[in-house]
Each structure stands twice: as C-alpha cells, then as structure tokens.
C-alpha cells in the first residue's frame, strides 16, 4: 500500500502549527502535528432511520386522517365534498323541520331541500316520474335519504334520458320535472342542493353516490310503499286520524 501522501502530512509540511500544544515552542521535539480525521457521516444508518421515520409518519398520518374524516358530520366528509354544493344543515336548521303536516307547504328553497312534509312519501326506488310530483311528498322521501333529481321541463330529451339512466334501478333516488326551475338541473338531498347546467356533468354521479341513502335523517327508513302518482296536491291525511308528528 503506497502511502506517499497521507492525510496527516498533506500540505502541512511547512511545519504549520495545528491545534493547542503542538508546533513551535511546545518543547516536544520532532512530533508532527496530528490533524484529526473527520469521520465520514454514517449514511447507511441515516437513510435507514429516515425510511423508518417516513413509513411510520405515513401510517400514523393516514390513520389519523381517516379517523378524523369518518368522524366529521355528514356533509363534511371527503366523499361529500362537491364543487358548488350548497349545504343548509348548519346554516338553515329552521328550514329543516321534520313534522308531518297536511296540505301544501311553502319552502324557502326552490326546489325544497327539507322541512315539514306530508305523511306520505313519494316512492323513491329509482322512480323516474314524467310529470310534476307533490313537493311535500318528495321532501318526505329526502328525509328517508332519497336524492331528488329535478330538471327544468325545457331540458332536452337526451339529457333527461341521461339523467334517468343514473336514477333507474338506484334505490334512494327519484327524478321529476320541476316547472320554474331556475337552472336546467337541480339535485337535492336533505339539507343539500347542487344546481347544474348539463346532465353530462360528472357531479351528478358524485352527488348520488355521496348522498343516496347516506343523507337520511331517519335511519332504517326506506323508499318503498310510497306514492307513485304524479300531481301537485299532496296526499290527504287518512280520515279520522290526526297525522302523528315526527317520524
């Protein structure tokens, strides 16, 4: 092994002093100043440590995020974040009464997103209605978790068909024309609304996926055995009974 030039002697042959107690005037004859070797960084250990830290942080981070997301109130979870979605549960709790009331109702939102409603719900097992349905019954359907797809009667037939394709066979959805709708399409679930321009909008599927059944404020309630007729008058209260409130 040739060691003609070793770290100890490189560039310092001029007898420069390094550190304390060496060099001129220390009275130690013939001893060359020793320059300490700087040890190389333990890159292997550092890399391994970094990998362990990153993996651990990712697992913990993901776990914390998942738990926190699942714990968020309905409507605020990741699956329900949709561009343009209007949320009324927090801002308009007084518009979201749950009583059973007879007759026509006035709702603040158009189409309504909730509120006091008829004893009867509109059948919402993916029912596609080709005429207007009573709002008061659709609202009850939404209390059970249905997504109510509404469209302006002017909507071109091919778009109506495209919407219908997303509703048919999908439990906890219903669809009907809504005269006077201020946009081509409006999707509703209890306390939520999303108005859109085109049936091809990807948010239609997102809304249905995020809210159908999930938006129910009456767990366990279903969409079967509902009214299947169209019209504007809500069902009359059964004779001889006062409709129960709530439920």
């Amino acid at each position, binding site marked *: 092994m040739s060691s003609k030039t070793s770290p100890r002697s490189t560039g310092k042959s001029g007898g420069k002093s390094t550190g304390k107690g060496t060099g001129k005037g220390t009275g130690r004859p013939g001893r060359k100043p020793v320059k300490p070797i700087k040890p190389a960084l333990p890159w292997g250990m550092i890399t391994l*440590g970094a990998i362990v830290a990153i993996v*651990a942080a990712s697992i913990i981070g993901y776990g914390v995020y998942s738990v926190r997301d699942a714990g968020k109130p309905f409507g605020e979870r990741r699956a329900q974040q949709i561009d343009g979605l209007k949320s009324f549960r927090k801002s308009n709790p007084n518009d979201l009464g749950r009583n059973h009331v007879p007759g026509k109702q006035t709702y603040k939102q158009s189409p309504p997103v909730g509120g006091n409603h008829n004893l009867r719900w509109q059948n919402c*097992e993916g029912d596609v209605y080709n005429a207007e349905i009573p709002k008061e019954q659709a609202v009850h359907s939404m209390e059970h978790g249905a997504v109510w797809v509404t469209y302006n009667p002017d909507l071109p037939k091919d778009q109506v068909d495209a919407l219908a*394709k997303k509703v048919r066979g*999908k439990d906890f959805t219903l669809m009907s024309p809504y005269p006077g709708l201020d946009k081509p399409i409006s999707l509703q679930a209890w306390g939520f609304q999303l108005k859109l321009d085109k049936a091809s909008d990807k948010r239609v599927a997102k809304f249905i996926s995020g809210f159908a059944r*999930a938006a129910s404020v009456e767990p366990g309630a*279903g969409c079967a055995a509902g009214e299947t007729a169209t019209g504007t008058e809500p069902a009359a209260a059964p004779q001889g009974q006062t409709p129960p409130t709530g439920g």
Partner: protein
Amino acid sequence: MAAFVAILVGVLALAVGFGTGVFVAEPRHPRDASAEAGFARDMSNHHGQAVSMAIEEYQATADPALRQIAVDMALTQQGQIGIMQTWLRTWGLEANSGDRPMAWMGTPVAEGELMPGMANEAERTKLRHASGREKDILFCQLMLRHHLGGIHMVDGVLSRTQDEQVRELAQSMKDAQQFEVGALRKRLTALGATP
C-alpha cells in the same frame, strides 16, 4: 452511534408491537373496496326491492299462505338491511362507493342494468297494477327469480370472506331463501302456474 442504533431498534420494536396489537387484538375492519363492504351495500339495495314487492303483496293478497310468506320476507329483509348498514357505519365506510354494483365479485353491473334477479321498471309497474290471482302468480315468479339472484350474491361473499359476522348473516340468508324458493315453487304449482 450506539445510541442512534438503540433508538432505531426501539422505534421498530414499538411499531411492531403496535401493529401486532392492532391487527390481532382489534377487529380488522374491511376496507372500502372489500367483498364485505360490497356485499353490505349491494345486498342492502337488493333486499330493498324484495321488501318493496313483499310489503305490496302482503297488503294486496287474499291468499293467507302468501300473506304470511310476504310479511316474513318484508320484516326480515328490512331488518337485515339495518344490520348491514350498521356494519358499514362501524367500519367507517360510506353507504355507497364509486364502484359499480357487484364489482367486488368481478362482475360489475353496468349503468342501466340491474343486479341479478331484480325486477325491472316494467315488471314492477305490472305487479303494481295486477290484482288477485294474477298478482299472486306474478309476485311468486318475480320473487323466486329475485331470491335466486340473491343466493348467487351470497355465494359470492361466502367464497370471499372470513369475517365471522358477515358469514353468519350471509349463511342465514342463504338458508332462509333456499327454503322460501321451495315455498314459492309450491305456491306457483298450487296457483296453476310455472316459474
């Protein structure tokens, strides 16, 4: 240096211990794309139609045997929907996923199509407008087909899960529905009709 190694070993030991504790001691929750989650979602919807047809038949039929079959079906399956929805909540999963129905079985149902055995819109409307013996026959035919489709999905989850509570419910569905298939076939014969 030695201290760094010691810390690293310590962290690894803690992670291994934590992981073992989580996976062994705590119940492992099925993930969003799992067979268990897919089954809970799809069977809830499948059951929903059975409940719908059964409750309609219960109210309409004059046949005491069919009335009993129908009410049993409606109440039991509605209850089972509740069980499956509670599983999803416990697992921290949403009621729906972005996947097509039955994607978890490798046979995704395309948009516009229905899960196996389900009645389509025309058949539901026909049943709704039917009455008397005609309605009874139609109910038995539709429900028989519905059950067979349901059993197919139950077999799908039984071959894909070790989850005890899922297996228990799925097996009980299969047992009950196989029995009901026999009962429906008998009623059809008695009504002078075929599946």
